[in-house]
């Protein structure tokens, strides 16, 4: 599979009167890594949920390679090549890594279990129940489950959350390498600016449910509104690689 274009137009999510997302537009180019940043409560995870089908947007549309998937279920979107990871580790705790990766592989057209396990350094842990591996390994397992089947579009919701700086850098390298190898389209939600600036080609900045700006990392990093709302000093620290 190769990367696909994902477009969201006018995505609005309301929860009992609270507007979590307000007419957000994004376009993910095939084979690109885009970052989605913003302070806590900006609506980043809500947008990922709306794109992946976990929640239905109150308004707006989502398309994948030109096909409208707004009303499609999670399973139908997955079959069209959309995959995601989660902010909180979302794995099968009682199953061994081998079993859960095998279950995921059976649902996929591309059988890449060995490649994913090797790429994410999980091979030696395949016979261990997921609840017994370290948090960092669980985060990589979460990512591995999303990568099984070589998705066209991958939505990563804070894959480095809770990892050490070294683990985060390692993960960023792994993601970049896999994306380049498989030409996957990626939307990355991440607070670690080092990770974001090191691998993203374009950035979307959300603030209070609205799209503040978007563009290449250098442009976004120089944007005064973004610095005021979110980046602050981290704009000077990140993106050195």
């Amino acid at each position, binding site marked *: 599979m190769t990367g696909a274009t994902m477009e969201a137009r006018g995505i609005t999510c309301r929860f009992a009167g609270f507007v979590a997302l307000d007419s957000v537009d994004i376009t993910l180019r095939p084979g690109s890594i885009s970052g989605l940043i913003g302070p806590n409560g900006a609506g980043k995870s809500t947008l990922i949920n709306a794109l992946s089908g976990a929640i239905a947007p109150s308004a707006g549309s989502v398309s994948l390679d030109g096909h409208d998937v707004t009303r499609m279920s999670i399973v139908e979107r997955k079959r069209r090549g959309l995959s995601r990871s989660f902010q909180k580790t*979302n794995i099968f705790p009682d199953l061994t890594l081998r079993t859960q990766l095998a279950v995921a592989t059976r649902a996929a057209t591309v059988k890449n279990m060995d490649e994913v396990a090797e790429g994410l350094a999980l091979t030696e842990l395949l016979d261990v129940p997921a609840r017994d591996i370290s948090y960092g390994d669980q985060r990589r397992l979460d990512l591995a*489950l999303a990568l099984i089947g070589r998705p066209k579009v991958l939505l990563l919701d804070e894959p480095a959350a809770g990892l050490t700086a070294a683990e985060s850098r390692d993960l960023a390298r792994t993601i970049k390498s896999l994306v380049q190898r498989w030409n996957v389209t990626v939307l990355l939600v991440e607070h670690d600016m080092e990770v974001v600036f090191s691998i993203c080609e374009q950035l979307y900045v959300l603030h209070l449910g609205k799209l503040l700006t978007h563009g290449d990392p250098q442009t976004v990093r120089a944007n005064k509104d973004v610095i005021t709302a979110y980046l602050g000093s981290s704009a000077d620290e990140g993106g050195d690689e």
Partner: protein
Amino acid sequence: MSAEPMNPSATRRDWTITMPVALLLLAAALASGMAVPMMIASSLLLSLALQAIIEAIFATSVGILIKQNGRISFGQAGFYGAAAYIAALVVERELASPELAIVLALVIPTALAFVLGLLIVKIPGIAFAMVTLAIGQALYEVAYKWRPVTNGDDGLAFSLPDTVFFLDSDIFLSPASMFIVCWCVFVLILFGYAWLSKSPFGQLTEAIRDNPERAQFIGYSITLPRALIYAFAAFVAACAGVLFSLYNGFVSPSIAHWSFSGAGLIMAIIGGPRLIWGPALGAIVYFWIKEVAGDYSDAWPAFVGAILIAVTLLIPSGFGGLLVSLFDRVRRR
């Protein structure tokens, strides 16, 4: 990145058995049961043993729902009773041959459970348990209130014709031969369940049990697999119900009552619901307490209650889980 498991014991591989070994074990299990009536002369003991096996099959049906679907049912007695009544009614009213009666008694509760399962399996936790309670009690009420057909609380007696499945029907009435029948059904169910549990479908249902949301995100619909497991559990309960009906030649509404569903749940919890053979072990323990403590006091359920509390607090994996961990400890030495 770490490549070491946090819990060293966790590297223990599951027991994997090749097909020839499994078939050998199956043959040995069947043969050992067939030898029991030759070693036990007492008809009373054999009768008690076969009733315990029927209850073990019933408890297994409750355990299947817990292990594969992560769901607790208070309504399995409904399917057990439905199967027992269908077999009894069809034979007593001579609506069809006894062979067809048995087939119908297995198929109808299974199909009913599948259809109901498609509607209810998405209901979470306690709410699911309450819905199953309602389903079980609805079936009980049919047996209790539909007097023109079921004879209400007077129950329904029936006699088998001379032959069933080309066999002398006395086979189903004699404790020695019926023990063998029940044992064979029990062993085949356990082996079938073990095969299903290890199969890709069994792995999928356990994944859905662990994390239904993630199962959808890796591409699976979660309703159909859960409904199939619900139907399979009902089929196993129906097998127990048919055996009960054939052996006793009598059915009454009490067999479909929720309290029997509750007993099945207690058996599964005592024995270890996450083990294939755990609920059956729990049924044997439950049955033994009922028979032994029941000789001394009508308050025998209090003993069961005390054991249930102790197991829940001290060994949540049940007696079966305790045996497995002891076995593992000995094996590692």
